[in-house]
C-alpha cells in the first residue's frame, strides 16, 4: 500500500484532506443512530422551528429535527454513491479486460455497446429508467451503475491495450502462460491502480446524480437523503423565507463535501497535481567570480563548468569542472555512459537547464560572449541562431500537428525578418540541402520515416547559419545504414556551412569514424580530450582504455572461439523452408488487400551448445522468426522442429510443456520485467507455469538461478522490487528467469544493446558460461555486426524476410556474398588503434 501510494499519488495533501473528509462523513452516517439527538422520522418539535440549543438546525415542515435528518441522509447518499460506483467499476473492469485482452470481434461488439451507452443522455435516461422500473434505492444504484460504467470501460480498455503491448506480457506468454493466468498474474495487478481513480470518479458523479434525483422527487421520498431534504425544502419554498440558512445550506454543503472528498482523492491519484513547473532556462546561477577569458580563434570554449542538481536535500554533481574547447570547422565527439553528464553539459551551454539545477562555476565563450552571463530571457536571440541544437529523441521532437515545412519556416522566421513566401522558399531550399524531396514539404512527422525526421531536425538546426551545432545522440535508434547516411550528410554540411559540431553519443565506434577530436566523460568529469588519432593510439585514462578495449573490432582475432559442433550431433532446432505472410483484414470491398511477406523460405539449424547470430534491421522479420520458433504463431509453409517435435502442429496444452525447454530473453530489461512483482515472483514465474507448487523447492531453484547470474540470493533480495535495480542487474534477472527452468534453447533478442558498454562484457560472459554449462543452444539477435562475429559461431542475415546470407561467422564477415551484407560490413567503421589511416575516416 505504501509503495502504491508513493508510486501513484502526486500530492499527498489532497489525498489526506480527501480521506479525512470522507472518513468523517462515513463515520457520522454509519453511527447516525448513536449520534443523532432525535428520530428523524418522528415529530419532535413544532414545524418550521428555528434553530435552538435542542434542535441545532431547527425543524422542517413536519416538525422533524433537521440535524438528525442530515445525519441519516448521509447514509442513503453515500450508500447509493459507493455501491453504484462499486458495481459500475466492476462491470467496467470486466469489460475492459475482456475486450482489451481478447480483442477481435468481442472487442468490436463491446466497444459498440460502450459507444451506444455513452451517446445516451444519461441523466434523462436515469430519470426515464427510474420511472419505468419504479422508485427505490435499488433502482437508483442499478440505473446509475448502468449508465456510468461505459466511459470507465473505454478508458480502462485503452490501458489494457497498452499493458498487453508490454514486453512483460509477451515474456509471460512466451513462458507458456495461459490467457487467464496472464490476466490475473499481470494485467489485473497492473490495472488496479488505474481502476481506483475510476471508482472515485464514478462515486463522485453517483452522489451528485442521487441527490439530483432525490431533489426532483424521483427517489424514494420516504427515505431520508440529502437530496430529499432539499426536495422538501424546495417544495416548501424554504429558500424564500429565512429558513434557507439552516434548511438548504447544510445538506448542500454535505453533498459538496462528499463529492469534494472524492475529487481530492481522485486528483491525488490521477498523478497530475504536478510539481512546480520549471521552464527551460530556470536554473540557478551562482557564479564565483572569473573563469577563463575569451580565447582567440576558437569557436567555443567551455571552462571549468560545474553543474549541481539539488533534489530533496541532496546535491548531486552532474558536471564537475568540465573544460572543453571547440575549434572552428571541426567535429568533437563527446562520449560517455548514460548519466555521466553529457547531456547536462549540452543543456548548460544552451541555458536550457531546469530549476533544481545550479551552475556553480565556469564560463562558456561563444566567440566574444560569455553565454553564462547572458540573462536567460535574452538567450532566445542566440539559441537557434548562432547556437543550434539537435535534442535527444529526434523521433519525437517534431510537433505532430504542424507540417514539417511550417516547422522549418518557424525556425527561420524566429530569427530572420522574412515574409512567409520568402521563408517558405528558404525552407524548401533547406529540404533540398538535407536531401528530402520537396513534395514531402506538407507531410507531418507521423508520415515520414525516422531517418527523414532526423534530416528535418537537422534542417531546422541549420536554418539560420549557426556557428556551433550541438547534437545530442542524433542517430540513436536509427538503423545502421541510415545512421551512416545521416552522418555523411552532417559531415558534408559541416564543410559547406563551416560549422563547428559537438557530437554527443554513447556510441564510440560511430563517433570515431568521423569526428576530428574526442572527449571522454566519466562520472561527471571530462577525463580526457584530444585529437582522435592521438587519443586512440595512446589513451591515458583507465576508463578510456577500458572503453576502447570493450568494442570488439570487426576484423581482429575472433574472441570467442568454440570447437565447431559440425554435423556430429543432431540439430536441436530446425527451421525448414519457413514462410509467413501477414494479411490486413478486408472489411470493405474495394479496399486494397495488403500483404506483408514477413518471412520467405527461411531455413537453418542450431545445435546443442551452439550460438547462431541473427542479423537484420527492424522489419526484416527477426521478431516474426522468434515468434514462430516460440510456437506463438504458425508458419504458412515449412516446418519448425525443436528437439524432434514439430512445433507448428502442437496444440496449446502440449505447447505449454514444450515452452519449458524454450526461452526468449528480451532486449529491454526495463520493459520485460513487471515492476509490481517481487524478484522472487519474477524469476519463479516459469516454474509456476510448468506446475511447480512447493514453495521451498521454488525458492531453492530461484536461489540457484540467482547464484548462476552473480546476484545476491538472500531473502532480502528476493523480496525486493525490480524497480530498485539498475539496468544491468535487471538484465541479469532476465537471465536468471531464463535458466531457472533449465531450458535447452534460448533466443536472446539484442540482450546487451540497452546496456552501457562497461556492462556488456559481463553479460556476454554470463551467456557463454550458461552455454558451456548447460549446452544450451542460442539464437542471438543483434544489429551489432562486430559483436555478432566475435560472439556467434554462425551468422544468419535477414533482409525483408529473405535469408540473404548464412554461414560461419568469419566467412560471412570476411567474404560476404550478398550486396546487403557487404553494405553492412562497410557501414562498420571502427577504432583502429594501430593504423588510423586505414580505417576509412579520411575518405569520409
Amino acid at each position: 500500500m505504501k509503495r502504491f501510494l508513493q508510486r501513484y499519488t502526486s500530492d499527498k495533501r489532497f489525498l489526506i484532506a480527501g480521506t479525512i473528509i470522507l472518513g468523517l462523513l462515513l463515520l457520522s452516517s454509519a453511527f447516525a443512530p448513536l449520534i443523532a439527538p432525535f428520530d428523524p422520522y418522528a415529530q419532535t418539535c413544532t414545524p418550521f422551528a428555528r434553530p435552538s440549543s435542542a434542535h441545532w438546525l431547527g425543524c422542517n415542515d413536519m416538525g422533524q429535527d433537521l440535524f438528525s435528518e442530515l445525519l441519516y441522509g448521509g447514509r442513503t447518499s453515500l450508500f447509493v454513491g459507493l455501491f453504484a460506483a462499486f458495481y459500475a467499476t466492476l462491470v467496467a473492469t470486466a469489460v475492459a479486460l475482456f475486450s482489451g485482452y481478447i480483442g477481435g470481434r468481442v472487442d468490436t461488439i463491446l466497444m459498440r455497446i460502450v459507444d451506444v451507452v455513452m451517446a445516451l443522455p444519461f441523466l434523462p435516461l436515469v430519470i426515464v429508467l427510474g420511472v419505468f422500473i419504479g422508485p427505490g434505492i435499488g433502482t437508483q444504484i442499478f440505473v446509475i451503475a448502468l449508465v456510468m460504467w461505459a466511459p470507465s470501460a473505454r478508458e480502462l480498455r485503452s490501458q489494457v491495450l497498452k499493458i498487453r503491448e508490454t514486453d512483460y506480457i509477451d515474456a509471460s506468454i512466451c513462458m507458456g502462460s495461459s490467457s487467464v493466468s496472464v490476466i490475473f498474474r499481470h494485467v489485473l495487478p497492473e490495472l488496479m491502480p488505474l481502476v481506483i481513480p475510476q471508482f472515485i470518479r464514478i462515486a463522485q458523479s453517483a452522489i451528485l446524480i442521487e441527490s439530483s434525483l432525490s431533489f426532483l422527487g424521483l427517489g424514494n421520498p420516504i427515505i431520508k437523503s440529502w437530496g430529499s431534504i432539499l426536495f422538501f425544502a424546495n417544495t416548501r419554498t424554504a429558500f424564500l423565507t429565512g429558513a434557507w440558512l439552516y434548511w438548504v445550506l447544510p445538506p448542500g454543503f454535505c453533498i459538496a463535501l462528499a463529492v469534494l472528498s472524492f475529487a481530492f482523492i481522485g486528483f491525488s491519484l490521477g498523478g497530475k497535481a504536478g510539481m512546480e513547473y520549471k521552464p527551460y532556462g530556470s536554473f540557478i546561477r551562482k557564479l564565483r567570480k572569473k573563469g577563463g577569458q575569451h580565447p582567440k580563434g576558437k569557436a567555443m570554449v567551455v571552462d571549468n563548468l560545474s553543474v549541481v542538481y539539488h533534489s530533496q536535500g541532496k546535491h548531486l554533481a552532474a558536471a564537475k569542472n568540465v573544460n572543453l574547447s571547440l575549434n572552428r570547422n571541426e567535429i568533437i565527439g563527446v562520449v560517455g555512459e548514460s548519466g555521466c553528464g553529457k547531456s547536462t553539459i549540452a543543456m548548460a551551454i544552451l541555458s536550457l537547464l531546469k530549476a533544481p539545477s545550479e551552475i556553480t562555476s565556469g564560463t562558456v565563450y561563444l566567440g566574444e560572449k560569455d553565454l553564462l552571463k547572458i540573462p536567460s530571457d535574452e538567450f532566445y536571440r542566440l539559441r537557434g541562431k548562432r547556437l543550434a541544437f539537435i535534442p535527444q529523441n529526434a523521433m519525437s521532437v517534431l510537433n505532430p500537428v504542424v507540417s514539417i515545412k511550417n516547422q522549418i519556416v518557424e525556425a527561420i522566421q524566429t530569427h530572420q525578418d522574412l515574409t512567409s513566401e520568402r521563408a517558405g522558399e528558404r525552407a524548401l531550399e533547406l529540404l533540398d540541402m538535407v536531401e528530402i524531396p520537396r513534395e514531402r514539404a506538407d507531410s507531418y512527422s507521423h508520415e515520414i520515416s525516422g531517418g527523414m525526421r532526423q534530416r528535418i531536425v537537422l534542417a531546422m538546426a541549420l536554418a539560420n547559419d549557426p556557428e556551433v551545432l550541438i547534437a545530442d545522440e542524433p542517430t540513436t535508434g536509427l538503423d545502421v545504414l541510415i545512421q551512416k547516411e545521416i552522418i555523411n550528410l552532417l559531415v558534408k554540411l559541416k564543410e559547406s556551412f563551416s560549422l563547428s559540431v559537438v557530437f554527443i553519443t554513447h556510441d564510440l565506434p560511430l563517433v570515431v569514424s568521423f569526428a576530428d577530436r574526442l572527449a571522454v566523460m566519466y562520472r561527471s568529469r571530462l577525463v580526457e580530450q584530444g585529437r582522435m588519432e592521438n587519443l586512440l593510439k595512446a589513451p591515458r585514462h583507465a576508463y578510456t582504455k577500458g572503453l576502447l578495449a570493450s568494442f570488439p573490432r570487426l576484423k581482429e582475432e575472433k574472441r570467442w572461439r568454440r570447437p565447431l559442433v559440425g554435423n556430429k550431433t543432431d540439430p536441436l532446432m530446425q527451421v525448414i523452408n519457413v514462410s509467413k505472410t501477414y494479411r490486413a483484414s478486408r472489411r470493405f470491398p474495394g479496399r486494397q488487400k495488403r500483404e506483408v511477406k514477413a518471412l520467405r523460405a527461411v531455413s537453418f539449424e542450431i545445435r546443442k551448445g551452439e550460438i547462431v547470430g541473427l542479423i537484420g534491421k527492424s522489419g526484416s522479420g527477426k521478431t516474426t522468426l522468434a515468434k514462430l520458433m516460440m510456437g506463438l504463431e504458425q508458419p504458412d509453409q515449412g516446418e519448425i522442429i525443436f528437439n524432434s517435435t514439430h512445433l507448428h502442429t502442437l496444440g496449446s496444452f502440449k505447447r505449454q510443456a514444450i515452452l519449458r525447454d524454450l526461452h526468449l530473453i528480451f532486449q529491454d530489461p526495463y520493459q520485460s520485467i513487471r515492476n509490481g512483482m517481487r524478484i522472487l515472483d519474477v524469476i519463479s514465474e516459469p516454474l509456476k507455469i510448468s506446475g511447480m507448487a512447493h514453495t521451498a523447492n521454488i525458492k531453492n531453484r530461484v536461489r540457484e538461478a540467482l547464484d548462476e547470474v552473480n546476484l545476491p540470493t538472500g531473502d532480502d533480495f528476493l523480496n525486493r522490487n525490480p524497480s530498485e535495480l539498475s539496468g544491468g542487474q535487471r538484465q541479469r534477472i532476465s537471465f536468471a528467469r531464463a535458466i531457472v527452468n533449465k531450458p535447452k534453447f534460448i533466443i536472446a533478442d539484442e540482450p546487451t544493446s540497452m546496456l552501457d558498454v562497461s556492462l556488456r562484457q559481463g553479460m556476454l560472459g554470463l551467456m557463454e558460461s550458461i552455454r558451456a554449462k548447460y549446452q544450451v543452444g542460442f539464437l542471438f539477435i543483434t544489429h551489432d555486426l562486430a559483436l555478432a562475429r566475435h560472439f556467434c559461431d554462425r551468422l544468419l542475415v535477414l533482409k525483408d524476410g529473405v535469408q540473404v546470407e548464412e554461414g560461419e561467422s568469419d566467412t560471412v564477415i570476411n567474404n560476404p556474398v550478398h550486396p546487403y551484407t557487404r553494405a553492412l560490413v562497410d557501414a562498420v567503421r571502427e577504432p583502429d588503434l594501430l593504423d588510423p589511416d586505414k580505417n576509412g575516416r579520411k575518405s569520409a
Partner: protein
Amino acid sequence: MIYLKTVGQYLFIFFIILCINFALPRIAPGDPAIYLVGEDIQNMSDEERNNVLAEFKLDRPVLTQFKHYIAGIFNGDLGTSLIYGLPVWSVVLSRLPWTLLVMGVSLVITVLIGMVLGIVAAWKRGGNKDVGSLITVMFMGSLPPFWIAMLLITLFSATLEWFPSFGAYAISAEPGSFEFFVSVLDRLFLPVLTLTLVNAGRMFLTTRSSMIMAMEEDYVMMAHAKGLKEIAVVFKHAFRNALLPVYTYTVLEMGQLIAGAAIIETVFSYPGIGNTIYESVIARDYSLLQGCFLIISISILLANFIADLGYPLLDPRVRRSVTVG
C-alpha cells in the same frame, strides 16, 4: 472512406437508441398499456380496454408495433401528449430551441473560461497560489448544480431582485421586440451562470492536465532550441497539442452538460426539454417523456457527429490514416 465508416457507426447507434426508446415502456414491470396509454386504462372494462389498445395498435405483434413506431418517427408522429393535448413532436420542437440556447451559451463560456484558466494554471503551476485555485475549482465543481441554482435564486431573484427566476421571456413583451430580447437575456443569465460555475471546473482541470503533459514533450524542448520565446512555445506548440484531448473531452462531456441543464431548467422553470421531462414524469405523460428522451438522444448524437467530423481538422494524424481493424 473514413467518413462513410463514421456515418455507419452513428446510424447504428441511432438505431439502437430507437430500439431502447421503443423497448423502455414495454420491458417495464406491470402493464405496458399503462405506460403507453395512461393510467385510466386500469379502470376500463375489458371491451373498452381492448378498443383503446387497438386504437394504439398495442394488440398487434411486437414487430408490427415496432414498424409502426419507426414509421411514426419518420412521419413526425410520436403520439399525443396527455398534459398538453398536442402532438408530442410539436411540444418537443417548441421546447428544444430554449435548451439549445442555454446549453450553447453556457458551453461557449465554460470552454473559454476553463481553457484560459487551465493554460495559465498549468504554466504557473506549483506553489500555494496554484493549490488555492485548485481547491477553489474543485469545490465549485463539487457543488450540486440545483443547489447553486437555489442559492442564486435566493440571492439574485428573491433578495436583490436583479433577475427574474421564472420562464425564458417576459410574457408581456412582444416577440421580436427589443424588450423581448432583453427579457430573454435577463432570464438566461442565472441558468447560464449556474451551468458555467458547475462545469468550468472540469474544463479547467482537463486543460490543465493536458497542458502539463504537453509541456513535457520533446517538441517543446525543440521549440526552445529554435529560440522561440516562452509564450510562443506555450501557445504555438504546447497548447496546440493540448487542444486535442481537451476537444475530445468536451465532446464526450456534452451528454453530461445536457444532463446538468435538465435539472437547472427545472429549478428555473425554464421551458426547455429538461423541464419538460420533469413535467411529464410528474404528470405520468409517458408519450411526452419518450419524445423528450428521443430528441435529446438525437441532439447529442448529432453534436458528437459534427465534432467527429471536425476532429481531423485539428489532428493531421487521423486525416489520412486508414484504420485497420
